[in-house]
């Protein structure tokens, strides 16, 4: 059974490819240290398109324009440069209205591109350039803590980690704002309400990491200008103690957040990286993996939903659950010494990572 995997560990070797969708220029070198805002590569596409009505300017039929061009298509021109001229009793000429490049002549118009649309690719993490992908980007490697979550608002950022406890019964309130400072990434159990969030943003926080969230907050979080990452999902009451403990252990350190949301098939997922000293750590696991005995998992259905435990058995013999639906099963040993039988496909592997060797 192949299920989704979440990496949530204090020590890992983390590699991320940063790649342009079209060829451009790579701006870093192998071995170079990069910060989250460092530009890895840049690609340019032509922009600022201008259609110059040369036929009208020269008062000639469109089909005669090509022979009147005094500059070649493809050539760069400066503002005021002559680009077309017609001789005769009343000679006329057309000049370039701006700096740019002539790209085409059609139907009496000359097309001039005056600008470039730049696509810049940021590192999005603190790390080291391990490999260059010529013209496209680079692979960056870092060592440290990696915590992946289940929902993000498609933003990137970084800041100093600050853990503030909260629960469904006691969510973050106005009084907690006093504890926050500009540039901090706030880690909390339950996503704050819309009005508290607004005040947090006004305080200049640079990111929010929350265990759980009410679905009604999604539209608000989507509009937030700072990255927001939800670790466990929506509507679940109890934040995960283990993950919160990882953040507590790293309080005060710089964390980079990439909350770009993958699709339903887990091609990527939002994550937080807290860099540490280089070490001999295992690599983060791919986002889909085979379920195996001994793995730690989170359960997403039934009475044990939301709980984490260890897989003690896996069976492909269909079992009929209370709903009447049959499916492959896994036995999961929970933290409270209970063992439950759950549908294998409703599990997510939690890769806690261990030191290699």
């Amino acid at each position, binding site marked *: *059974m*192949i299920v*989704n995997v979440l990496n949530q560990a204090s020590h890992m070797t983390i590699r991320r490819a940063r790649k342009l*969708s*079209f*060829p451009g220029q790579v701006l870093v070198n192998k071995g170079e240290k990069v910060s989250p805002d460092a530009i890895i590569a840049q690609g340019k*596409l*032509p*922009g*600022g*398109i*201008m*259609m110059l009505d040369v036929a009208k300017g020269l008062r000639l039929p469109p089909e005669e324009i090509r022979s009147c061009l005094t500059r070649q298509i493809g050539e760069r021109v400066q503002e005021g440069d002559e680009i077309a001229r017609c001789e005769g009793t009343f000679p006329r000429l057309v000049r370039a209205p701006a700096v740019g490049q002539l*790209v*085409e002549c*059609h*139907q009496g118009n000359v*097309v001039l*591109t005056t600008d470039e*649309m730049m696509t810049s690719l940021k590192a999005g993490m603190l790390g080291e350039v391990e490999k260059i992908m010529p013209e496209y980007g680079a692979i960056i490697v870092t060592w440290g803590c990696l915590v992946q979550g*289940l*929902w993000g608002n498609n933003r990137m950022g970084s800041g100093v980690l600050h853990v503030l406890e909260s629960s469904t019964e006691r969510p973050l309130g106005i009084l907690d704002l006093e504890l926050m400072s500009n540039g901090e990434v706030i880690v909390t159990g339950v996503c704050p309400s819309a009005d508290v969030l607004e005040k947090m943003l006004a305080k200049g926080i640079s990111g929010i990491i929350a265990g759980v969230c*009410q*679905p009604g907050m*999604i539209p608000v979080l989507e509009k937030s200008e700072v990255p927001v990452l939800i670790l466990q*999902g*929506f*509507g*679940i009451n109890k934040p995960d103690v283990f993950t919160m403990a990882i953040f507590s252990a790293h309080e005060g350190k710089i964390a980079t957040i990439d909350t770009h949301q993958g*699709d*339903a*098939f*887990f091609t990527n997922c939002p994550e937080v990286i807290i860099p540490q000293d280089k070490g001999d750590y295992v690599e983060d696991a*791919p986002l*889909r993996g085979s379920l195996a005995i001994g793995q730690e998992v989170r359960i*997403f*259905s*039934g*009475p044990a*939903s939301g709980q984490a435990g260890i897989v003690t058995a896996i069976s492909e013999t269909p079992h*009929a*659950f*209370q*709903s*009447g*639906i*049959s*499916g492959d099963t896994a036995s999961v040993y929970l933290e409270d010494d209970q063992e439950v039988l*759950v*549908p294998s*496909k*409703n599990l*997510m592997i939690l890769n806690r990572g261990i030191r290699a060797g």
Partner: protein
Amino acid sequence: MSKKVPFSPVLGLAIGWANTHASLFGIKENRYSLVDCQKSQTSLESELDLGKGVFEALHKLEKQANYALIDGSQRIIKASRPQGKGVQQVALTTSVGEWPKTVLVGLNQKGSLRAGRLLTESMPIQLLGSFGLDALDVQASMIETVVQLHPELFILTGGEDGSNAGVIQDWIDILRITCRLLPPSLKPTILFAGNQALEPNVKRHLEPLSRLKIVPNLQPVVGEINLIPAQLALDQEIIRIWKKKSASLAALSFFAKDLTGTNSFYMGRTVRWLARVKGLQEDQQNQNGILALDLGVGTTTVSAARGGDAGTMMTPHYKKRFEILGDSTVEFIRQCMGSEYTQQGVIEFLGRLSIIPGILPETVLELSIYQAIVRLRLQQALEKFNQNYPWLFYGPRHGLRGGMNSVIISGDVFTHAPTQSQLMMMLLDAIQPWGFTSFLMDRNQLLPLLGILGGLEPVLPVHILSSEAFSTLGTVISPVSNAHLGKTILSLEISGPNGILFSGDIQQGTLTHIDVPEGLSAKLKVLPKSGTDIGLEEPGMGGEYELEGGGLGLVVDARGRPIKGAKDDEERSFQREAWINALEG
């Protein structure tokens, strides 16, 4: 007991976002038959590696059919002639891949752009924008927009044959400039499906710059739309793009040679073909079409054909998985669930479903929420289809008023339903059929495979569709009447070879299940009261019909259209339980 594999085996692979099905077809007593079918979870590992899931399904199939399909190097054994192992042909359909980014340009919203949108919504492509005549007023900004969007596919349509040449020429010029500006790796494939008189111009200006496909005009004359040639060209192009992004798909496709395509296109082909065959078999009066519904984890696909009309429509969920957490979904679920509903329970489950779209409902409560979502998805998909193809005559208020001879369902959501009664309830509530409808289940995702294999061997789908490869869920009669609740609106008599199986009256507001055993061919006599419409020429008209047994047999849904649930939550729960009991009885 192992099955004997007959001559000329053909292997079909249907790869969906959740499951991979491997089907082995052979010839038995001079007819093609389904030897066996096995499924595995689609692997979807890094870079959309599908290999693991495919080989797992093939290994299961080898074991079950007791027939060698894979060699020691993990390759499908190809046999040019029967030799006791391997297959002569492989066919592959898939829906797994990032939907290619597409821009559509044409003339006006109600004409060519409408035809273009029907095309794009029938295929797994992501429409970034559609532009008409007004965009030509600002050519410079149009070029800039397209450069910025840099689509993988560019569909150019418009101009009935022989008209609007000037406007289309403007689009050709814009495209030509755009292609000059884009770097080679971003040049789109251009599909020209417009005024055919411009074909030489299109070729001259665009072929040297980008990959070009020319197909017949989507709308050669006003009101006449033909999407099929463009769909076929897009199907090939989508597969080409997906193969570039997935090495495993490219490798599997190598075995299948030309028989690789998208699930949606070939599902549509089979549905069109089936409707045509049915139309030939039956008189015009009863010829009211085929509807296929594939409710996948990633996409809902609806395909329907009736008479000369046909259409396919895809609704993707895989990019919008958090939308189900909206208030309208929760309210719909509340209406379906009645007193079982708790807001916290529903929101928690929806939250989990948004994270694991292929979740298996474990508890009765989860199942109840899940089945409500299935109803909602079906309704939404049918409504959307009806907007594009009004001949379907569907609306959540009145149901499927146009009627359909057969409804074929596929997808885990259906095949996993714990009982046939629950499945039938979901379908009846969402579709609300009129007249006579047979419900069939495609457990093995055969419909698209038959579409693609029919191109190679036309008799294969004929033989498979008339075999037991598709299981019968039941036949439904939906009489519609204005009579008061409890009034008799219809009389029925069902007789088999050994005499009368059922004889009785049907009352307004009831749901009745009459068992007709598997394999039995029965005679059904329907006598509606005056004013009761059973989908024939006029209300009150009845007749005698052949009835095939199997599944739930015959279901008479006399609950009216629309189906009205009680206002009180508790009462609605009792009502629902009574309906389920009626189907299970």
